[in-house]
């Protein structure tokens, strides 16, 4: 008795350890994600690309970022995002998209802040368009120079400007088309998995058919139905054909989760199926979908570039990386048309793949190493 007391005296009674705040699933995932150095670098690359995309008119262009003209402030470079954002006053005053000479000529009081590189992604810069700047070279003498960092293509359009503005397309294609594919895939998978029965068989068959139809036929057939294709059509088409994988995964998750006791409890207490799907099952089915979505972004970007390369996609002048690569095919002397856009596609795809891989390891408990 005594001894026991002594023992308990000598060892301090273990005070209940303050229960460590249990972090939520997403916070935990984020922590695991950050633990991987290459994933952080890849995320950094994608962020830089996003920054380039947002700032593209300020990096390369022939329109001033900000200018004061006839007493008012304008942002002509914004029209690179959307043609119709160009202020009508510049059309009325017959600028014809040539700002550097017209601005001081038509209003000596005007001032302007110019993009870093005076080059246009859609057309060749002519002689003396910018005071004392020679026009862009064409043909064989068009390699990388100080004026054209990545050289120019056959028609004299600056490759650097094309690629900077192409970043916008690449990122948009990734997010928009995968967004569409994810929405369709999740909807079809969730409905099939939750309701089961004939609805499920019907939707599964439909998914299988879409999966088996060669992507190229599907895409080219949809493409030919469009009168004047733009880059947005490409995104919708890639999205509309890219959902079967996500749908199958979603269905499997729903089949699994709907067996859980808490879902049965919710059903017994009379909660509507829509609410059960959205509030009870969906949040728990999101994590496994995240990984194929990330890989899907990479393949959507790749697909858009392949389509542009094959000559489908927005009509020229379309600054997509794939269209630059397409002009490289057959022009082997102009190596810069292959190397720079090729590396850009590669870097982007690699980054998304690395992010996807890291997400997979961060969200899948089976892949976690024990004890961590």
């Amino acid at each position, binding site marked *: 008795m005594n001894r026991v007391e002594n023992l308990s005296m000598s060892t301090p009674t273990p005070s209940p350890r303050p229960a460590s705040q249990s972090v939520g699933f997403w916070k935990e995932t984020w922590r695991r994600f950050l633990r991987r150095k290459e994933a952080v670098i890849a995320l950094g690359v994608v962020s830089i690309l996003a920054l380039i995309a947002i700032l593209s008119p300020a990096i390369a262009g022939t329109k001033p970022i900000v200018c004061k003209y006839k007493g008012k402030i304008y942002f002509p470079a914004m029209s690179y995002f959307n043609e119709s954002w160009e202020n009508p006053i510049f059309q009325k005053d017959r600028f014809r998209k040539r700002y550097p000479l017209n601005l001081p000529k038509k209003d000596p009081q005007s001032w302007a802040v110019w993009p870093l590189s005076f080059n246009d992604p859609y057309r060749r810069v002519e002689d003396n368009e910018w005071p004392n700047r020679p026009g862009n070279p064409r043909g064989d003498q068009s390699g990388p120079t100080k004026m054209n960092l990545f050289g120019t293509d056959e028609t004299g359009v600056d490759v650097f400007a094309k690629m900077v503005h192409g970043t916008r397309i690449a990122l948009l294609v990734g997010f928009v088309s995968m967004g569409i594919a994810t929405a369709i895939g999740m909807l079809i998978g969730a409905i099939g998995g939750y309701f089961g029965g004939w609805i499920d068989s019907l939707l599964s068959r439909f998914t299988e058919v879409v999966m088996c139809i*060669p992507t190229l*036929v599907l895409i*080219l*057939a949809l493409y030919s*139905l469009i009168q004047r294709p733009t880059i947005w059509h490409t995104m919708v088409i890639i999205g509309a054909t890219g959902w079967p994988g996500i749908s199958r995964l979603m269905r499997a998750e729903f089949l699994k989760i709907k067996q859980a006791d808490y879902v049965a409890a919710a059903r017994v207490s009379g909660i509507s199926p829509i609410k059960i799907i959205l509030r009870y099952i969906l949040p728990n089915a999101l994590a496994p979908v995240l990984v194929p979505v990330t890989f899907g972004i990479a393949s959507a970007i790749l697909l858009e*570039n392949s389509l542009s390369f094959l000559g489908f996609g927005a009509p020229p002048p379309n600054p997509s990386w794939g269209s630059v690569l397409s002009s490289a095919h057959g022009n082997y002397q102009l190596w810069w048309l292959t*190397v720079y856009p090729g590396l850009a596609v*590669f870097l982007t795809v690699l980054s998304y*793949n690395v992010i996807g891989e890291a997400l997979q390891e961060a969200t899948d408990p089976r892949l976690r190493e024990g004890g961590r």
Partner: protein
Amino acid sequence: MLDFLIRRLSIGFLTLLLITFGVYGLVRAMPGSPITMVEDRGDIKRQISEADRQALLKQYGLDKPWYTAYAHWMFDMARGEMGRSFARKRPVSEVIGERLGPTLMLSSTSLLLAYIISIPLGLLSVARAGKWDERITGITLYVLYSFPSFVAALMLQLIVAVKLGWLPLYGMKSDEYDTFSSGGKAWDIIRHSVLPIIVFTYGSLAYYTRFIRANMQEVIRQDYIRTAQAKGLGPFAVIVKHAFRNTLIPFVTKIGLSLPALLSGSVIIERIFNWPGLGQLYFSAILERDYPVIMALTLIFSVLTLAGQLLADLLYALVDPRVRIEDSGG
């Protein structure tokens, strides 16, 4: 077993009907017909009179609505008649037949190479896990896996064919092919196929290696591996005889799933190398609205895809006695 087969085959048949029906509807919905596509090339001599057009439409079976035409196509197909190519004015089977060889030559070589190289690489990466050479090969393979194949094709052409001049730029045969001896002919084709085969292979290398490694990592933690090590077997015997043999099951199913890739080829790679394969044929058939060729190729690809899935399931049951096929759903 027989029940399972019958059920799977009938579901597969139904899926095939749905696919071909869908694709037929899609390609007929595409604006333009084989006739207008020929006219579009701008040659004034090729303009045809209205009467001739009607006659042609009738001959091609395009005067009927698309679902009737589909039924006709289906019944012809059931009798083994693939029809005639509109654009090439020859039987479809002949057109496809002459493209089959070049595509198979690339795909089977590259598949074989991928297996031959990736098995030892995968085993090595398990044996030397964590060592510097394993890390370097792992990273290299991952980078290669992310490298877009059409970019690689362009860069290889640029470096190997244009700058160094070691290999021909594109095509399958040289212009003076007919003057070569038979040995020279074979050598000529081999030289032309090196670059496309590299492009087809390098990406799948990483894929298979990682696949093998993932499976091996699971097996290598098993007790019987520890037993084998404890009784003093060398690393080679442990990894190859005890571990790798037990990863063959998923590996075998992979072979089934890679069946469609054998024929589908790649439109973009075949176009870059101007290789006369099925991918290019498919692409130009779509552009020319050559319905019989599109449909025949679609059917072939779909059959292969479905057959590959079935084969994978069957092989799975065959090599793994634990899998009882009756239990697995269709």
